[in-house]
């Protein structure tokens, strides 16, 4: 009887330990929420213009960008992005009497696919459309011309650190191809994201 009791006790003890060895599920539960990120900062146009000298081209400006993402879970984010960038400004003296200025602006409209690579670090790609606005002044008044650019592509690396349950701050580096004019631009921006 005593042996039987000891055996049962040992059996029970051994049964308890495996129970304690199971940890909670490591797969994160799907979050399924939305987020909105606003970024602003430096943009730089990679000058490949052939009809103007490099010292006639202003390539550095401040751009702004907004992303609305659906994060269904795990590492994935899908969404839309828009923004405003001045691509370049050119001021050229053609004759002593005539100085012309040309500005090119871009409003991208992109579909974003974002993946969390490691904690707080994201990579995203975004193909889409853009509206290009060309503004000429100094020669026969001011002319504004708008056109669509259909084949645009952006790659972004982001770092977002959550400071509270809803807010994250960080930065983004992106490179953007504007298909219509075959031009590249890159940006370094500070980002504020809010989980909705």
């Amino acid at each position, binding site marked *: 009887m005593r042996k039987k009791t000891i055996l049962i006790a040992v059996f029970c003890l051994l049964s308890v330990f495996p129970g304690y060895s199971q940890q909670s599920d490591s797969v994160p539960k799907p979050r399924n929420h939305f987020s909105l990120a606003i970024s602003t900062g430096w943009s730089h146009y990679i000058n*490949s*213009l*052939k*009809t*103007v000298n490099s010292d006639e081209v202003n390539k550095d400006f401040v751009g702004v960008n907004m992303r609305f993402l659906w994060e269904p879970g795990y590492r994935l984010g899908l969404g839309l992005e828009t923004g405003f960038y001045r691509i*370049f400004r*050119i001021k*050229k003296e*053609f004759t002593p009497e*005539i100085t*012309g200025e*040309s500005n*090119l602006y871009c409003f991208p409209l992109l579909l974003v696919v974002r993946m969390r690579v490691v904690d707080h670090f994201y990579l995203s790609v975004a193909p889409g459309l853009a509206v*290009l606005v*060309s503004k*000429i002044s100094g*020669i*026969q008044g001011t*002319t504004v*011309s*708008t*056109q669509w650019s259909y084949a645009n592509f952006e790659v972004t690396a982001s770092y977002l650190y959550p400071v509270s349950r809803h807010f994250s701050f960080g930065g983004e580096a992106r490179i953007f191809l504007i298909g*219509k*004019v*075959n*031009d590249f631009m890159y940006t370094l921006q500070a980002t504020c994201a809010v989980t909705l």
Partner: protein
Amino acid sequence: MNRKIFQLIWISLVVYGCNKYETVPVPGFGPNSILTQTDPLGDTSKQIMTGVYQVLSGADRFGDTVIVKWNRDKISIFCGNGCYMILAAGYLDSVIMIQGYWRYAFGDATGPVTAYIGKDEGGSDIVNGHPDFEKIIFRGGFGSTSNVLDNPLVIQYARPINPAMLDGSFDIVAHRSGGRTSDRLPFSENSIPMINYTGYFGSTGIEIDVQLTKDGIPVLYHDGDINIRLTQKGALSGPLANFTYLQLYFFVRLIHGERIPKLEDALNFVVDSTDLRFVWLDMKDNTSSMSTVIPMQKKALERAKQLGRNLNIYIGLPSDAAITDFMNQPDYLNTPSLCELTLDDVRMVNARIWGPRWTEGTQNAEVQQMHAEGRKAYCWTIDNIFFIQEFISEGNFDGLLTNYPYVVAYYHYIR
């Protein structure tokens, strides 16, 4: 290691495969050319040299026969396989020296050409203007790379060109004034330098694209917007019609650096500086440019007449909208036009020329109808060697619009 090499190759293919429209360089000889020591040939000498020649060496590249024809100050040699040569010539002590380049129209193969016509092989007869020559033989070489003449070239006069082929009854019309930007020619399409050069391609006429700027000035330009296909990447982009002429003049350069020309300047150049006898104005802006362009057409025609030039300029009517706009103009029935639509449309606007698409075939019966009514027929835009040959030998068109006038020239003059 293999993976890295593969990635490098793949990246290289992507980068270099995306190169577009790199110009094929025209081989040149610079200030050391032997032609600097020669004298120019007279018109009689040029006529003697013109003819059909047999290729004795170099047939692998140029075919068995070629056409040799002078245009102003240069010799053009047209081959049946898409090759052509543009050469300058002069004489020194009864020897005719010839230098220039050859090019394959459908690719980027090109190279230098140097040849001579010896004193006893026709040089003396040509220089002295003797039409009863015994023989004319070009001897020389051509290269496959710049300035290296590593292949022999010998061509011998076989027979004259049929005079009926030289009477001006058939037009070789160069598309976009000489060819497209994508053909990688030395000049941009729809430019004055191209108009100046197109005669060397064998063109007797040109088709040019006309549209209005924002301030209503007709210019030559094909696409609807300023883009990197036709222009150097610059400060301006967007629809051409959104910009004034001066804005385009200062900000835009065509691919080879030319400015977008005004129609008026282009027509004046055709009248004053070329031998072209046919101009087709392809009206890109169909709804509002007729009232501006037609007076320019009439002014250029009047000027050509005063100068004794044999020149015809036609308003192209490619669409119903263009026809409507055309018929709203005063005296349209007496305005020379070329209608691309149906035979009834041709009659409705009293077009002098019917211009069907080449894909509709030779349409000999329809062409015959047009001829019976005193009209002409030109088809467009025909580029395939086989079809060019077929349309010339079996068709009855009065002209062909093509991106390869040198090919059309061969099959026309060889008849």
